[in-house]
């Protein structure tokens, strides 16, 4: 399985839940928006980690899409 991780910066509020939960995948930049530190995820542990943040982000800014 392969997933693409991205952040919708038009809605992200930069409150940093994602980076606090999984700093290896997310950080909040100086401009106040989250960035995905890696976008192409193949390791199931990374995918599970990213998925767990999707539901916790208060603005639904985190997108995790499947690629075939």
């Amino acid at each position, binding site marked *: 399985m392969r997933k693409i991780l991205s952040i919708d910066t038009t809605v992200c509020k930069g409150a*940093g839940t994602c*980076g606090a939960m999984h700093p290896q995948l997310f950080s909040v930049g100086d401009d106040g928006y989250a960035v995905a530190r890696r976008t192409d995820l193949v390791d199931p542990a990374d995918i599970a980690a990213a998925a*767990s943040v999707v539901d916790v982000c*208060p603005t639904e800014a985190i997108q995790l899409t499947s690629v075939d």
Partner: protein
Amino acid sequence: MQTTEQAPTLFDSAYYQDPYSVYDWLRIHDPVHRFRFGVGDVPMVFLSRYDDVRALLSDQRFSNDGAAWGSEEFKRSGMIFGAGTLIGRILTVLDPPDHTRVRKLAMGAFTPRRVATWKEPVERIINETLERLEKSDEPDVMDFASRIPADVTGEILGFPLKRFADMLDAIERAFHADPANPDNESVVAAAFEEIVSYGRELITEKRRNPGDDLTSVFVQARDGEDRLSEDELVSLVAVMIMAGIDTTRNLIGSAVLALLDHPDQFRLLREHPELSSTAVEEFLRYDGAFCVGLFRLAKEDLEIRGVPVPAGTPVVAGLQSANNDPEEYIDPRRLDITRTGQRHLALGYGLHNCMGAALARLETGIAVPALLRRFPTMRLSVPRAEIRFEENWLLRSLPSLPVELRPADVTR
């Protein structure tokens, strides 16, 4: 001869009226400030710089759980609130993985779609509250500011009105108990018991008759096989009330005071209500309701900027100090409702950032412009020097903000 300038005192009477000059001193001279907290004489550390505060809030070497990680002095101080009751296990004190699990289940109730459905009740309640203010003989902005989040919270949680009033009364008794009363502890314990029983009652009712209120959503929240336990449900309902009402009240109050202190900004927002979303962010930055974060306990011996911080030390995140750090904000004590740039930390940051942020923004963003539109020439009815903040270490809170709603001789 050299003299070392004495650090100003945190949490004394002068500080409560003007915390910002204390923060200014600390940021420059002692950014990792060791001090003793008045209650229990507990040794603590205060962080005042933006970068340090933000780093603390996302640092997993710290815990929010005072009962598990606090120093002996801290545990003895009696400041671990609701200790031993279900309220002592609310979301704000949980660490991962419990925190992640509960937060994830609860966050499902705060989707942007659901928040959008709250606009109508919030507008309706604000209109009713404006009517009441208009009729008041001694109009006080704090009555307006208190009423809005209380009514909104009760309605959103799906409480029957009378029951909610009882619940608020119990919360008042739990938090404003008189420490001089020898029965203090049992008064507080009884109040917490009551809060818990109202919570249980509401949850039982929503299991039987689910509605589209927040409590019903919490009751039904599921993540695969995982769901909230009965105790977690009760403590979630309680935390919504405890975290959502006084905070929003105080933000609305200090926003109105800030506008009265900055007439150009008052006029700008009155004429351009479309600026309300940047204005709300600026109100939060300028005098947001939480002066400091909840205590973070060091889980191991560590150092911050070379200052040793032994395990168990409560570290205080100076949220409002960070939000007024001149390294981040130009001329920080000037209210500028069009300000952009660095985000404030007034709603927290990291794992425990405010769960009700969208609701707080919605309420304040409607309430403040509506007040200005209705009373465009409003002004204080007492001298400015009589406006005093409460001596509350956590929340920046005005007990009263008396105003003349339509002074006869004013045009603005």
